Every structure is written in C-alpha cells, then in structure tokens.
C-alpha cells in the first residue's frame, strides 16, 4: 500500500505547485470544499479547470464569501472552528470560534454577524466576525443545518434535521418566533429574492416545502418523480433560486440529478443528470452558470442556466461538499 499515498501525493503536488501563483482575475472562480481530503479546490468555471488545490482545516463543509468577496469563510467541522482565508491566496487570515461541529452558516447583510449551525449540538451560534466573539447560542431542534436569511436580514430560517422543523429566528432579539413542521430531514432553507417565500428541502421526505414567511404556513409542496429512479433515492438537499424569479434548481442527492423547477408555478420542468450524490449548488455572479458538488463521484458539474444543460463535469478532491463562487 505504501506507494499509493506517494503516487497520489505526487499527483496532487503537481496540481497546485504547477498552477499559477496568481488566480485568474475577472473570471468566476468556484471554491469547493472537499470533505474527506481537507482541501478546497478552486475551479475556473468558464474554463472548467481546477486552478488551485489548497489544504484547509479538517472536514471542511459549509463555505461562503465575505461581503467584499475578498475573503472566504470555511466551516472546518472536525476542528470546531471557522477559518477565514484570503480568497486570492487561500492563506489563513484567522480563525473564528464557531461552537462544536459547524456545518453550514450564513453572513448577515451587516457583513459582520455570522450565524452558524452546530450540527452536533442543537444550536445556532451567532458570531461577531470583527470581534471574533460568540454573541449568542440559540437552542434549536436536533441537528440544525439549513440557514436562510430574508433579504433584509431580519429573519433567519434554520432547519433541524431530526426535529423536522424550520425555525424562524428574529435576528434582532435572537429568539425563535415560530416553528414550522416540514417533511423528514430538512437540509437547506432559502428565501426568494423578494422575500415572499421560503424554500425548504427535506432530504428523507423527498420534498421541497414552500413556506409563506408571514403566516409561517406551508403553501406548496414540490414532489419529484423520475422514471427508473426509486422514490427512496430522491433526496432533495441544495436549493438555488434565480434572481429573475424564473428557475429553481434543486439537487436530488443519490438520484444524481438536479431538478429544474419553475419558481412561479412550482412545476418541475426538467431533470439534469449530474454526478453521484449531488448536494450543494452555487451560481456564478451573473447567474449564467450553476455548479453542483457531487460527493460520491468526486466531481462537480457545470450547468448552463440559459440552456438548462450540463456542459461538463470536473474532477475535484474527495467528497466535494460545499461550493461558493465569486
């Protein structure tokens, strides 16, 4: 067995070291966390090429950009902290306290308040980024994960996987104002651009619930049917909504597909075949391209949003989990 890590190291070492020290400028770059490799891959989305692979903390999962897009924040789940890195050099700037096992997080529009879901601890940790201090821990349901903020930043919607709820949290008082029961194992929550709907994916329930944030009632439930794929394998996780209100893209996990849904009518328009166990999604800033992380096939798929077609897949590290694009 000994030669393999070395061969692999040789292979890996060739990639980052031979890559340009300077990341390409003025083009969309996708930052992808590789959960099992403890690295992130930087992908030139238009070229479809990994331009840099860099070591980060243990079990990297959630990844977001700072408001000025000059820094990336990474949940290093097994290190129980958040890493802030320079988006150009990927050098570590500093750590943030996060509470145990941070999984997903979201930055408040104020640019300084970070809301972190602590999966292991039934808690949402609220952190002030410049002060590097925990402001509050909000007890939520069992295994919190999804984090969605309304466009104004007044309400945070957190989902808890085992409690099966979407918790609506007032970002001012940091208290839960309402809980809405959804289908089993809710993973991701997201507001529409206009703030009138909250989309919540239920992985084991196999559905996406659309909640009215004023009444907290579920208004619509999207279900999926794919010929040749059993219902059990249809497990919605990542959700992305185009700002123009046209499309919703929903990653269906081991169904290996992304559903394209009409944001208005909630009809499924198309299923796009991608890699295995597709979880998280991100748009390029112009929303012309969508990138999906396919955990089991160790690659990402790049989707042309206008044509609704998968244009290519690119190999990254092991178990790509999160993705953000700047």
């Amino acid at each position, binding site marked *: 067995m*000994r*030669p*393999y*890590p*070395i*061969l*692999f*190291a*040789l292979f*890996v*070492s060739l990639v*980052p*070291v031979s890559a340009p020290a300077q990341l390409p400028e003025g083009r969309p770059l996708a930052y992808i966390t590789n*959960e*099992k*490799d*403890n*690295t992130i891959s930087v992908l030139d989305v238009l070229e479809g090429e990994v331009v840099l692979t860099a*070591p980060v903390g*243990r*079990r990297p999962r959630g990844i977001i950009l700072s408001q000025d897009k000059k820094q990336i924040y990474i949940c290093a789940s*097994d290190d129980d902290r958040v890493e802030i890195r320079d988006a150009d050099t990927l050098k570590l700037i500093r750590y943030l306290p996060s*509470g*145990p*096992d941070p999984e997903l997080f979201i930055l408040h529009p104020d640019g300084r308040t970070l809301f972190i879901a602590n*999966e*292991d*601890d*039934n808690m949402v940790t609220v952190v002030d980024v410049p002060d590097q201090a925990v402001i*509050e*821990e909000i*007890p939520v*349901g*069992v*295994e919190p994960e999804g984090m969605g903020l309304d466009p104004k930043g007044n309400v945070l919607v957190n989902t*808890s*996987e*085992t*409690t*099966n*709820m979407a*918790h609506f949290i007032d970002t001012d008082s940091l*208290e*839960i104002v309402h*809980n809405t*029961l959804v*289908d*089993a*194992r809710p993973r991701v929550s997201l507001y529409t651009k206009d703030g009138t709907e909250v989309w919540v994916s239920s*992985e*084991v*329930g*196999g559905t996406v619930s659309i909640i009215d944030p004023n009444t907290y009632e579920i208004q619509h439930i999207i279900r999926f049917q794919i010929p040749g794929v*059993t*219902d*059990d*394998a249809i*497990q919605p996780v990542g959700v992305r909504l185009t700002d123009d209100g046209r499309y919703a893209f929903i990653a269906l996990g*081991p169904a290996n597909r992304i559903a394209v849904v009409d944001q208005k009518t909630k009809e499924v328009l198309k299923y796009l075949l991608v890699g295995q166990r597709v979880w998280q999604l991100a748009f390029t800033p112009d929303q012309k391209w969508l990138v999906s992380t396919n955990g089991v096939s160790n690659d990402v798929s790049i989707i042309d949003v206008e044509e609704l077609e998968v244009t290519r897949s690119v190999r990254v590290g092991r178990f790509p989990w999160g993705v953000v694009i700047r």
Partner: protein
Amino acid sequence: MRAPLRYNPLAPVAIMVCAGFFMGVALFVVVSAEDVSARALSQEELDERIERDKERRRKRQERQKEKGTTLQKKVTLTVPIGILVLEKDIPPALSNLDPIIQREGFDGARLAIEDNLTTGRFIGHDYSLEKVFVGKDEDPVAAFLELAQKTNYIIVAVPKELLLQLADLPQSQSLILFNIAAQDDSLRNEACRDNVFHIIPSRAMRADALAQFLLRKRWTKWFVIRGVAPEDDAFVAALQRAANTFGINIVEEKTWDKIADIRRTAKAEVPLFTKTAPQHDVMILADEQGLFGEFILWHSWQPRLVAGTQGLRAVSWHRNHERWGAIQMQSRFRRQTRRWMGEWDYGAWVAVRAIGETITRIQKDKPKDVKDYLRSDAFAIAAYKGIKVTFRPWNGQLRQRILLSAPRSMVSVAPQEGFLHPRTPLDTLGYDRPASTCNLNPQE
C-alpha cells in the same frame, strides 16, 4: 503500472527523489488526510468534551435566566413512555472482550426522549421515560402491569415467549408495545400481534441481507456451521429460506455440539471439523450466543471467510456506522453514555422517536390514533439509514436498511443495488406481504 511498484522497495525511493523537492506541503496534507475526519474521541477527549458541553449549558441557562425568556411553550400534551428490559443471560466468556451491557436500551430511549423534548418544547409537548429493569428472579408480568398503569407505550426487551405473554394480557390491549430484542420470524408471521411493533430486524431480514451481499459477490456455496441453541435453529431456518429465495447452495450444514472450552481445543478440533465439508465459498455461522463462532476463523481447514453471527454480521446498528448522519448519532450517544450504541439502544431510540414524530404530526396521543398513523403511508422518520424508515402495515415490522459489518469496517449495506421491489427495495428483506402469514392491515 502499479503492480511492480508494490514489490520494488526502490520505487518509492526513486519517486521520492524525483518528486521530493517540490512535494513538501502536499505530501503532508495527503498523509495527514489518511487518519483524520471523524476519528472517535478518546476517553480523555470525551471527558473534556462532556465538561465543555456542561459549561456551555450552564452559561446558556444563565443567559436565559437574565433575559427571563423560556423556550418551553405551554404544555398541552404529556406523554410518558415506558421501557422494560429483562436481565440478559451471561454466556460463558470466550473471545468476547466487549462488556455485556445490562439495561441496554435505556440510554437509547433516554436520548430519544431528549430529542422528542427538543421538538416538543416548540409545540408544547412533554415526554418522560419510565425505566424498569427486571432481574432474572423477578416477576416480569407484575413489573409490566405496574408500568402499564403509567403509560400507553412500552418498549420491551424480552424473549419471544414473554413478549407474547405480555402482549396478550387484557391490560395490554389498549397499549402499544415496541419489540427491540426478539428477532423471531414467528412474531412477524403466525404469532404476530396487533399491539406490537417490531423495531429489531428479524432473523429473516438479516439472512436475506447476507444472502444478497454474498450473491453479489458470487459466493454462493455456503458451509453452514451451527450451534445447538433454539435461536441457532431459528437462524439456520432463516438462512435456508434466504438460500432458497436467492438461489444459494448450502453445500453442508454441520452442528458444533462440543462442550469443551474451545479456546484450548480450536487448533485441534476445528480443522478436523471443517475438513470433510465439500468445496465452499464461505462459512456461515449460526452461533447467537457466541460459544464457538469466533474460533472457526483461522482454524478452519480451508482458508474461507466467515459470516453470519460472527465475522461479517447483518445488524441494524454498529459502531462502524457513520454514513447518513450516523456519525452525529454516535457522537451524541457516546457523549451521553461513554460507550458505543448497541442494537437495542438504536431500537429504543427509533421507538421513542416514532412515537414522538407521530404525536407531533397528529397532535393526538391516544394509542389507537398513534397505531393507525404508524401503519400509514404518512409515517416516516429519518433514522440515520439514508432513506426513511417506515412500518410494514401487515406485521408491524420496521423497514430499514441492514448494515453488513465486519468487526472494524462497514462492508456493505442491504438491500443491495439491483434487488428490486414494486413498493420499496427494503421489502426484499424479510417477510414481504405475500409471504407473511400475518395480516394486521387487510385493507391496504
């Protein structure tokens, strides 16, 4: 490309020399990647983490006190849940280094009660746990009846005969019992009861899970070695049924009935015992008490792998299990108990969560309503198996993926890909509706 490298000690060196000067950081990353990610906490780390958790909880409570807020909504429903566990027989110690956990199930139930309360406090539902441990010389029926006065839902870890006795008591007719220990297939067939749900997989489910896996490996010639206990008879029957279903050839079935301490005799006895068996791909053991099985490995005449009650086992939970969020569950359980979760703990967790999930959804706590919901298509919970777990309406058995685990690695998960079923692939394991002689829900 790779094969020669494996045996040439100079090859790695050569590569190191070629690549060494620019490998630096990358090598470090790769090597360290081998042993990171989700390694279990050591006892010391566990203690530290438990202390940190306590401290955080204390601070949080202080903050809440200061703020004067409480998360608890006004309680509108209170649901007590009972668990009754019978003292386990301790078989003679052989190779089993793991402690026998008496009261197994209590901790799983306790964790699920906490999970139910976490959910319940948002909607004003309160849960409590009544634990009863019955010693070998105590009267389980009396203990059960006392418990039955306090709760409508009782989780039981008792053998089949006692389970039936308890389920048939007049006082039990308005209760729901959750079986987390008895694996007997008869309880899912002719001896099924309307007031009993089975969380623990039956022997048939386990045998089918093994058979599917071994069929995929094309290891279809089995040499079955069995003990003399009635449970071993039952497991052999399940193996025979699985062999029939999946076209497996049991080339020989042999009974180990020796009573000498196998630790001393294995070297001499096992080669002789296994020598006469016809050509086989794998040895399948039926030794539920663990009286000899571990010692078949390495002593057999032919070098063959072992599965069944030892070696590769088909289980509902194992400390190897880490997929589908299970790692969270393992971590929470260990932090609460300082030990690994067992099958009965998992069963008790599922039972309490099933009750909680049902009451959360239907907002009623009458056993009749809960029973109807549990058997309906509407019921589903996520139980760290990647797909929802549900109940078979015809016999009350929990549908679930079965883990195929070696002592230190998760080998596979059943049902195997390609084993299809019109309802769900999970129904390829155990007694499907047409095969089951139990029919609790004829209208489905």
